[in-house]
């Protein structure tokens, strides 16, 4: 039975960082001090008009916001159904939505009087966005990145170095995003007094999922305004890809109270639905603890994190933000997944129909939107959060196509 509409609150998390039963703070005692400090600083910053003004100014003049809401006319014709609109986060400075969060957190770093920043990155987009914000504010920057991701996202590694960041390769575990988060947390354990950890997604211990969501919520707020301006209403459906889930959380959060809008999150279906072949904890996983938070996760019966796979480095993660688990449990957002193959096909179609190279991550959302649009009539509209651009993926796509 579906929960009643309205059982999903936008007034989350509570003060302990809970989204319903999800979220919380499962971290070593050493980090509690830094998390308390961050929560207090964030609260103070929220009430500070100067902080808000400085961030808004940067989003407008440095990032280039608002990002356009674009009607994909030829893609719509290609699918032959509902109108497909693209929220163009790929046009932001540094090429993805990640910069919305890193500028906000870099400003918080400055407020806390810290001079050093660490970050993890999967696809490298968050690493580049962090390195960029640190260069802008004159902060020292160290980015942890799995060796496997360093291989498949080489252009971003190069950019980070050019921006003055130190990229530290992570060779433990699966050598991907999950291990990069472990390593960043370990660094933070020893450096909490002087260092801020700019976490890149709506995952991790409280208050990170809330802070990242709030900084990304500009995506959803703009989408609401632009929809009213361009088609005098709200779309029927909004779709976003979900790895850790930051672009989706930023897009969905302002829309949670608009019950008439269907929200769909698309996870990485990878090669198949067999364990280890995908990265879809909301679709195939169960609630458990990973990286300081209680949320859906891919684990074995002992609580050990399971291997996951996605061709897209940004979605190749065994966990997901706790608010997504909450939205799933309340039925407010529907979660599905899309295979590597479907995402690659969508990449090609968007490239040839619209002249836009989407990131492999965002291609998952495009694939689902195309399938959705085909089944609907032309008076319906779907908005896709096009979270990033695909330039970084060009060589990896060439490699995948060679098979």
């Amino acid at each position, binding site marked *: 039975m579906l929960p009643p509409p309205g059982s999903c609150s936008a007034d989350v998390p509570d003060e302990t960082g809970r989204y319903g039963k999800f979220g919380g703070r*499962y971290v070593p*005692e050493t980090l509690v001090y830094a998390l308390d400090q961050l929560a207090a600083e964030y609260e103070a910053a929220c009430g500070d008009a100067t902080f808000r003004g400085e961030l808004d100014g940067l989003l407008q003049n440095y990032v280039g916001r608002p990002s356009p809401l674009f009607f994909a006319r030829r893609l719509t014709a290609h699918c032959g159904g509902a109108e497909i609109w693209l929220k163009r986060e790929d046009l932001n400075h540094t090429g993805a939505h990640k910069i919305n969060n890193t500028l906000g957190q870099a400003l918080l770093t400055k407020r806390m009087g810290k001079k050093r920043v660490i970050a993890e990155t999967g696809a490298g987009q968050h690493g580049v966005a962090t390195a960029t914000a640190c260069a802008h504010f004159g902060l020292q920057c160290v980015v942890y990145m799995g060796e496997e991701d360093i291989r498949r996202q080489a252009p971003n590694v190069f950019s980070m170095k050019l921006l003055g960041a130190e990229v530290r390769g992570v060779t433990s575990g699966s050598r991907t995003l999950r291990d990069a988060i472990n390593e960043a947390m370990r660094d933070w354990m020893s450096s909490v007094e002087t260092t801020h950890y700019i976490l890149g997604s709506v995952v991790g211990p409280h208050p990170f999922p809330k802070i990242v969501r709030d900084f990304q919520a500009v995506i959803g707020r703009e989408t609401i305004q632009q929809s009213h301006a361009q088609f005098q209403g709200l779309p029927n459906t909004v779709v976003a890809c979900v790895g850790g889930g930051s672009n989706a959380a930023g897009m969905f959060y302002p829309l949670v109270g608009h019950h008439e809008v269907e929200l769909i999150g698309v996870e990485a279906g990878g090669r198949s639905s067999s364990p280890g072949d995908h990265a879809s904890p909301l679709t195939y996983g169960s609630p*458990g*603890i990973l990286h300081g938070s209680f949320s859906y996760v891919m684990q074995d019966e002992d*609580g050990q994190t399971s291997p996951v796979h996605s061709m897209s480095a940004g979605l190749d993660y065994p966990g997901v933000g706790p608010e997504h688990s909450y939205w799933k449990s309340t039925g407010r957002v529907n979660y599905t997944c899309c295979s590597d193959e479907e995402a690659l096909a969508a990449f090609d179609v968007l490239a040839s129909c619209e002249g836009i190279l989407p990131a492999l991550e965002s291609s998952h959302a495009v694939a689902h939107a195309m399938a959705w649009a085909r089944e609907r009539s032309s008076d319906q509209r779907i908005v896709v959060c096009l979270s990033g651009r695909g330039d970084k993926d060009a060589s990896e796509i060439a490699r995948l196509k060679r098979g």
Partner: protein
Amino acid sequence: MPFVTAGDPDLEFTSAVIEELVARGASMCEVGIPYSDPIADGQVIQESYTRALSRGIKVSDILQTLGQLAPRINGPLVTMVSHAIIYRHGMERYADALQDKGIAGMIVPDLPVDESDGLAAVCKTRDLSLIQLVTPTTSRDRALKIADTSSGFLYYVSVAGITGERSVVPQELQERVGWLREQTSLPVCIGFGISQPEHVRVLCQVADGLIVGSAIVRRMADAATDSRDQALRQVGDYLSSLLAVMDAR
């Protein structure tokens, strides 16, 4: 008090090491349950966990082995275990299993006091210890709260950082631990970074116990290349060298 990783390279060796350490005079033993994402651990313990897990070790096998060992040794065993593992097993089921195997309690390094009420209650009804951690970044008020909900002993983490051998122990450590001991009736033991006789000489006067982890795990790892008897003797001799410093006081 030594820390050993369970199942590195196998449970038979883990058992032998614990027996050896207790025979050499360890007062109790902390057994690390390997976890895939141990964020509080440095390279030595991380790698030992990875080695154990790559051999497919299961929590049930570890507890089985500890259950056979517990009655044979003269000193309690406690498990160091991630809450990810406890949650997946179920807090009550995990606690029941410990009790059933004669294990004295648990240290859960990723369960801060704000989240530990449920597990503390489960432990209390079973007479299991829930050993909680206090660190240099813990405020005094918070340390008192942690002391209140902890049982067995209090684990004082010597540095803001991860596990691993360090050459020097922080200056303020003695004063901080001294203060904490005045506030609680629980024994206070210090861990993280302790590996050298000099550390023991300085710290054994201020603490009720000292925990040595990475330095032992590193020597245990030699069992993969050297002969087991030799690794066993090395670990034992190392512990004896630390205990000799304490006895000399």
